[in-house]
């Protein structure tokens, strides 16, 4: 690397103007998605704080926040409804936040859409209890369901959604469709067959096939489980139409112009690979992508000094300064612990300076590596607007921290160290 480092490539991506997005009253839903561990929840919360500060009446739907972050927003107790978070905002600006309780969300749907007796039967069904307690997929359905509910209430002018830490980051997009195809599918009719046999004379032939099939299923699942499933499906039957309609509506909501997707990533190969995949899927689904939030980006206030020069200078100092030791390259790792002699102040300062230079070299290497990773993403998707958030030394778990992140999101360029 030459002096001056980080020569900006020809294909510098456009900047994502976060404040413009938040200030635009047409923006009604912001969905934060991305791989696990990249700071989705923190980003969603920080956007909420900033939006409220700029006069929006915002609600943040978090899926699985870290405990201390949840506490700082007062949403650590699960009651599945948004609560007001006290933040200083412009007139009209408010922040509400909630943490998704998927079982409660599912129960509420059942209670709202089935008569009391049927609802009781469903809630007591063992198959339902396992399903709602969060097996693979339930969280995704319920997150989308909750989003639909919040939107329908129309109490907020901006909804910011965090997405579940799924096995695939796209599960939440696929969940409503999957539910739909299941409900439309033949399988559900097979499951229901015993309940419906009789009424349809014309389906005799089909029914033979079906009873053979349920026989097979019974053999596989054990008769008791099959019966639980059948009872469940039968009890849910009347509700399925509603599920389907709402799933479709939510999906359309995600395609609507008022929705903005933010793909969140860290400048690491895995996270950005997933981000690229996401960008492609969103385009396929015709869902509006606002841009990429790149968290934990490193920068240096001394980036005019390259890693190579810093290392050479460090070696130079160590060799010159530690002449009485057998190897000048012993390095600071070992020598820093030794107390410097009273009369060799220069040696001590040289050692310290060499350490500073080695630290700097390491930082520059990190920056270069991050840049290479980002360049790969940018060359694949040069059209995607990007905002960068500088790496923080520690975790964020208070409103002041979220506000600081919000400022960095809006500034879009990491401040020099």
């Amino acid at each position: 690397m030459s002096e001056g480092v980080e020569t900006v490539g020809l294909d510098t991506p456009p900047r994502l103007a976060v404040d413009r997005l938040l200030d635009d009253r047409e923006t009604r839903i912001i969905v934060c998605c991305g791989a696990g561990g990249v700071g989705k929840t923190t980003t969603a919360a920080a956007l909420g704080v900033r939006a409220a500060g700029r006069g929006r009446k915002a609600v943040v739907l978090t899926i699985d926040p870290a405990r201390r972050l949840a506490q700082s927003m007062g949403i650590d107790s699960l009651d599945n409804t948004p609560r007001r978070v006290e933040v200083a905002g412009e007139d009209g600006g408010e922040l509400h936040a909630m943490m998704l309780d998927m079982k409660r969300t599912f129960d509420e749907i059942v209670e709202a859409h089935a008569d009391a007796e049927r609802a009781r039967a469903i809630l007591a069904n063992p198959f339902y209890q396992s399903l709602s307690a969060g097996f693979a997929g339930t969280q995704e359905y319920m997150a989308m369901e909750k989003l639909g509910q919040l939107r329908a209430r129309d109490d907020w002018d901006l909804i910011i959604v965090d997405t579940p830490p799924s096995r695939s980051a796209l599960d939440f997009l696929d969940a409503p469709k999957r539910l739909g195809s299941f409900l439309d599918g033949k399988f559900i009719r097979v499951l229901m067959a015993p309940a419906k046999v009789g009424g349809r004379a014309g389906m005799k032939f089909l029914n033979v096939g079906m009873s053979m099939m349920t026989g097979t299923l019974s053999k596989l699942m054990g008769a008791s489980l099959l019966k639980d499933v059948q009872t469940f499906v039968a009890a849910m039957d009347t509700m399925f139409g509603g599920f389907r309609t709402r799933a479709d509506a939510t999906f359309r909501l995600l395609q609507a112009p008022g929705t903005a997707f933010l793909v969140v990533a860290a400048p690491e190969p895995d996270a950005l690979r997933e981000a690229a995949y996401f960008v492609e899927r969103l385009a396929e689904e015709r869902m509006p992508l606002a841009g990429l939030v790149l968290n934990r980006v490193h920068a240096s206030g001394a980036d005019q000094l390259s890693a190579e020069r810093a290392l050479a200078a460090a070696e130079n100092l160590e060799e010159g300064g530690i002449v009485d030791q057998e190897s000048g390259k012993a390095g600071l790792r070992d020598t820093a612990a030794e107390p410097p002699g009273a009369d060799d102040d220069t040696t001590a300062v040289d050692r310290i300076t060499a350490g500073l230079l080695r630290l700097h070299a390491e930082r520059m290497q990190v920056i270069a590596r991050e840049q290479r990773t980002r360049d790969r993403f940018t060359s694949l998707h040069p059209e995607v607007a990007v905002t960068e958030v500088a790496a923080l030394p520690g975790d964020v778990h208070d409103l002041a921290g979220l506000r600081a992140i919000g400022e960095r999101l809006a500034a879009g360029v990491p401040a020099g160290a």
Partner: protein
Amino acid sequence: MRAPGAEWLGSVDVSRLQVVSGKGGTGKTTVAAALALALAREGRRTLLVEVEGRQGLAQLFGAEALPYEERKIAVAPGGGEVFALAIDAERALLDYLQMFYKLGSAGRALKKLGAIDFATTIAPGLRDVLLTGKACEAVRRKDKAGQYVYDHVVMDAPPTGRITRFLNVNDEVAGLARFGPIHNQAQAVMKVLKSPETAVHLVTLLEEMPVQETADGIAELREAGLPVGRVVVNMVRPHHLDEDTLRTAAEDHRAGVAKALSRAGLGGARRGGLAERLVEPLLAQAAEHAGRVELERAQRSVLAGLDLPTYELPLLGAGMDLAGLYELAKELRKQSVAE
């Protein structure tokens, strides 16, 4: 339960199913792969399985997307072999139906009906039963001579937040399907998972959130009666300066540092010279570094409180590649021998 730790890589009497979990972003796939390499020593054979359909292993080894088939992916130093398999729930179910019920065509009919889709994506837990079941099958598989086909199976598992539920799913399903083949299958898998044949390792970074999740994850695993193995601290950064040295630098030696930089050939030390201008940002970076060291120390003491054997793997300066993987495997072996 066997006390974990004493003999991890060093002995034959080591858990045959090694499950590697960790918070997203901690590098659990990398650690799982390095572990598989480390275990494949002296002609041994390990199987590395992936259950999340992400093709992370193929990426890591620079191979093409893995098919649903066990395929040799690397040779370990000393001649051991690492095989890899990306478990696909649907294929695992069809296999299973074929194996136990000879349901070749009925399986296809079920698929056409959407039953397979239902089983692998919607039916509660079945997907996870299939994934864990396939891994356990590989653990127990023997060749004609009665020898285990794989000495070890290493699983790149779901993240910490979901690992207990994932591994424990068979318990729940065994309760749901109170008898019948699914019940039996679920119980057989659970027997392997809760035995000393299994060890669940959690990968973390020296940062607050991953460490907290690790602590929570261990508590959950223990409560569920699942065998906790080790904590693997990943991406540990070297420390170039201790705080005391740094404080001295910041307080007393600004001018001295500028002079030293100048002596090392980095421009003038006088006001406005390059060396002088470098002092401030370099000290700022050092202060950040010291802050991080402080945080890391706090996290280390949290980890120490967990009272589990720990491995530390260094952050690789050049980023992760195949050479880095072998380096990490070497490190794992070294640390297990040193114990």
